[in-house]
């Protein structure tokens, strides 16, 4: 059946564990004709349904240039994500999308990109990184600053070498602390490998903003894209503005409770903005002075 809020079935082709509570799901729409016309922009999200449990908005984290499948990096935080984590390869979920305004790819053309991410915030930025890898001629340099709570929480650690090897890309990492508690066997192995990555990529201890001390990017000709906890984005914006970056060149990705994804249920509003339709990506200058303060 058709309908604005009707999901289409999608099969989980692959599940790859990333951290203790986060996994990457590779999905493909069951109906070929749906998969064929499906496409998304970096920064957009899908609504993922587990019938009987509910629906959750989750950013798309795969390469937009790959058309046979799409990926979501999902952290277990509530009912839907917990139910999703219990599924196996071959299970089906409902998907509708893509929704939202993604990263301003047209404004990134020909410019340098300063990408600052925290924790799971790297997931909606990964499609942007993939696009730079795929079509580097469209962009200038890409400086990636990525931080997590501890080394075992670093996402996509297996890809860092690919990213940093590219002449236009430079990666640096930070962790709040070097130790992690209550790790599984796989987690301990992840921690070990991540510590090696930290060595390679100038690993600092502290919030990701500690990496601003030796920033390669400078304001002229650079656009900032950042995603992570709101408190992190607040300090990223502040720290970069202190260094001369202008609010109209800083882009953030916000999250609010969503129940429809199509600007009708009302839940995700911040002032006059619907995070699902006018965002989730916003230019910092457009949200700074909202009556309902964000940051």
């Amino acid at each position, binding site marked *: *059946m058709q309908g604005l*809020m*009707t999901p289409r079935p999608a099969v989980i082709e692959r599940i790859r564990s990333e951290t203790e509570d986060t996994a990457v799901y590779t999905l493909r729409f069951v109906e070929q004709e749906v998969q064929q016309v499906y496409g998304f922009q970096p920064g957009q999200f899908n609504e993922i349904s587990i019938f009987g449990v509910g629906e959750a908005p989750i950013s798309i984290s795969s390469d937009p240039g790959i058309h046979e499948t799409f990926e979501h990096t999902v952290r277990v935080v509530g009912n839907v994500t917990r139910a999703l984590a219990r599924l196996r390869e071959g299970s089906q979920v409902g998907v509708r999308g893509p929704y939202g305004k993604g990263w301003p790819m047209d404004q990134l053309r020909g410019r340098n990109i300063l990408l600052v991410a925290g924790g799971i915030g790297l997931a909606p930025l990964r499609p942007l990184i993939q696009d730079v890898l795929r079509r580097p001629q469209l962009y200038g340099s890409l400086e990636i600053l990525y931080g997590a709570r501890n080394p075992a929480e670093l996402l996509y650690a297996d890809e860092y070498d690919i990213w940093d090897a590219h002449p236009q890309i430079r990666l640096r990492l930070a962790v709040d602390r070097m130790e992690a508690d209550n790790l599984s066997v796989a987690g301990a192995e992840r921690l070990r490998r991540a510590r090696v990555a930290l060595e390679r990529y100038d690993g600092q201890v502290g919030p990701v903003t500690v990496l601003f001390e030796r920033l390669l990017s400078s304001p002229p000709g650079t656009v900032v894209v950042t995603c992570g906890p709101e408190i992190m984005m607040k300090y990223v914006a502040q720290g970069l503005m202190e260094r001369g970056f202008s609010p109209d060149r800083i882009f953030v990705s916000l999250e*609010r*409770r969503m129940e429809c994804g199509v*600007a009708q249920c*009302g839940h995700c509003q*911040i002032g006059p903005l619907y995070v699902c339709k006018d965002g989730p990506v916003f230019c910092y200058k457009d949200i700074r002075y909202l009556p*309902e303060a964000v940051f």
Partner: protein
Amino acid sequence: MAVEASTRVATAVHVTDRAGWEGLIKALQRTHQVWAPIKTGEDRVVLQQVDDPTSIRVDAHPTLLPTKKVYRAPEETLFRFSRKHARASPPPESEAGVETKPLALVGIHPCDLRALQLLDRVFTGFFVDDRYSDRRARTFIVVGNCVSPFPSCFCSSFNSGPFARDGFDLAVTKLDDRYLLQAGSPAGQTLLAVLEVPVAGADELAQLVAAEASARQRLTRRVETDGLTRLLNMNVDHPVWDDVADQCLCCGACTAVCPTCYCFSVRDRLNLDLETGERRVAWTSCLVMEFSQVALGHNPRHHRVARVKQRLYHKFSYFNDQYGEFGCVGCGRCVDTCVADLDPVKILAKLK
């Protein structure tokens, strides 16, 4: 101004008596499912399906629940599902929204009609809700102009009354025992022509104009809308919000009876077989505690004052930014319903 209003609808004014009016209803009933305001108690007026044309009130107090309930019921099924196949299937026939007969709304007030026009922007604007859109397209609307505004009314502040200007098939104005009718669409014109409703005389036209002027004069409660959005945005920290938060129970009654409030929740309901179920939508309110709460517990509007502000700011500021017009139609239902006796007219007046 009254003249301007009645000539805005550039069609002839017709007039009929009680028998003619009831005949018109019966004619509508042959082809439509008629919903109208009905008095169900001493002071209770409810919008419901009508069989007896004599029970219809066109000059009654605004209905308990507003017209929005016809297009978005308090609870509805979006679709049914089976967990095994992750596929959605249509809801039961009765909720499918494809009534056997189209709907006719008879006697809703201009404020409620205006509210529907505002809801149209939400449900058929940026994204189109097909079910809402179909139902709206299949409705014949007879709006009942208000000759006698009620104590809480302030529709004129938002250009939603006391008389309607557009958006209707027919407009009826009851003056004593006469029913003055104007068509607002080809369908309305046709009905008047088919029933051979006579054209009104000059006297009656004058009375119609005077009735609107008189009604307008009686609307003494006013909200100054000029610069209202800016006034609100400049008073984010005004002490009145704390006062309101102290009194407001965040019960959500005002949002339920508000004809333009549209927020809804989406919930899956699993049957006892743990296999089949439905995804349901239901009215909710930005005033309830968990409205903005996200998984892991963070709630940007944890504090009551934040929710109270959202309620009023959305209605009188944000909606204007989103859809180009204020979200309030001045029907006064929130004032009548609030258990804490809060009144947006009085609250906004404190911002001056």
